[in-house]
């Protein structure tokens, strides 16, 4: 979505700021999920702590984007693609703030897990995580590049993520049914697996917002993109 070309250079700058900050919050949220998972896998508590601290920046940026967007709407009364850019950016920002919240939840559970002994089954999370991160990355790229094509790709990835999520959940549930001393850890892994799946869901939301931004079409809840 082109933020340039308006007669008002201030309007160009205001729209560009909204877009740039949305990209920035995307990078921060993505990094927080990566650090949370790395903290868990590498048994690095300091990375987990960093995620919890860095979430504050995401929260602040969310409020700034909301405020800037409000200013753009009040001051410049945008229409058509400009209006869709502002609305979509606000919604995407909200989704990214929630991604970062899930990163914090993962980090907090990871700290609990790291207090216990290392278990091999932690690797069951990897397929879900890798897939969710590809979804998040592709969704963010689709926003940066204004690519409906990339956004559509994200929508097709959701089913596979659900499969990975179910498979890991099943494996952990089975472990919980067995007699062992690591019940709490497996329960925490079920939660983490759930939050990873939520990151994928939120990536889908972001992709849907990008499609709306680019095509003015609402593909949420099973809507199809028309030519």
């Amino acid at each position, binding site marked *: 979505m082109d933020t340039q*070309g*308006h*007669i*008002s250079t201030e*309007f160009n700058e205001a729209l560009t700021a909204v877009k740039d900050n949305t990209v920035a919050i995307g990078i921060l949220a993505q990094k927080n999920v990566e650090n949370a998972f790395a903290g868990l896998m590498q048994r690095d508590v300091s990375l987990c702590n960093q995620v919890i601290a860095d979430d504050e920046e995401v929260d602040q940026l969310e409020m700034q984007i909301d405020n800037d967007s409000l200013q753009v709407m009040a001051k*410049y*009364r*945008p*229409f*058509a*693609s*400009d*209006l*869709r850019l502002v609305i979509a950016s606000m919604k995407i920002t909200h989704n990214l703030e929630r991604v970062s919240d899930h990163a914090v939840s993962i980090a907090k559970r990871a700290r609990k897990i790291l207090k216990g002994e290392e278990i091999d089954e932690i690797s069951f999370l990897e397929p879900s995580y890798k897939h969710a991160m590809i979804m998040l990355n592709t969704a963010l790229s689709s926003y940066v590049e204004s690519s409906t094509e990339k956004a559509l790709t994200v929508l097709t990835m959701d089913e596979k993520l659900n499969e990975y999520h179910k498979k890991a959940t099943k494996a952990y549930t089975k472990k919980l049914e067995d007699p062992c001393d690591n019940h709490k850890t497996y329960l925490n892994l079920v939660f983490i697996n759930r939050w990873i799946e939520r990151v994928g869901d939120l990536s889908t939301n972001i992709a849907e917002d990008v499609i709306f931004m680019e095509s*003015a079409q609402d593909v949420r809840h099973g809507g199809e993109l028309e030519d």
Partner: protein
Amino acid sequence: MNSKLIQLEDLGFSYDLGKTETIKGVTLDIPANQVTAFIGPSGCGKSTLLRCLNRMNDLIDTAKITRGTIKILGQDIHASDVDSIELRKHVGMVFQKYNPFPKSIYDNVAYGLRIQGEKNKSTLDEAVERSLRGSALWDEVKDRLKTSALGLSGGQQQRLCIARTIAVQPKVILMDEPCSALDPIATAKVEELITELRKEYTIVIVTHSMQQASRISDRTAFFYLGEVVEYNTTETIFQNPSQQQTEDYISGRFG
């Protein structure tokens, strides 16, 4: 609802006896009981086209319809048996600068009916009250109908001009930037009035305010260099126009 109250077919218009066309082959249908907005940069022909609809341009010696037709309720308004004065009874007009006559409020509203020969006082009283109520002005002026219209505020004067227009019960009301000289409160009142008037009249409005067009109109036509670039529902024009030129204009990228 008549979806084609006004029909323009390949309309061409020239201010210099046909040497250059200001309107270049415009075709569009304007539905009844809706507000249709004409938008576009200065000089694009939107006000000229508006004035074609009640043959106001006939008053200019060198003005000429170069091609095409304008039909209102199926009647070609340039047919030899159509009288332009008669036409303007059915197609009223409200101008950018409110222009009440230097007469009383009552006389302003009754003016059109009187020149049509209406002399019955109770008929005139009834029409004045109905029109002032219709233009949402009655409560503000009912106790001073005999005072000068020039003593009213700008917004009230513009609504008085609307009352004067609707007193003769036209089919169509043309409005040429009716709020451009008004403050935001007076503008809001006129816009509210336009929304109400649509129930009884067909309104065509020229406006430079994109917000106004998006707020009050049902359909919008974007003009550029004498041609219609895009004509669609207002929702489509302002949310997802099909033409890049329209998008550029409404989003302030034009020029």
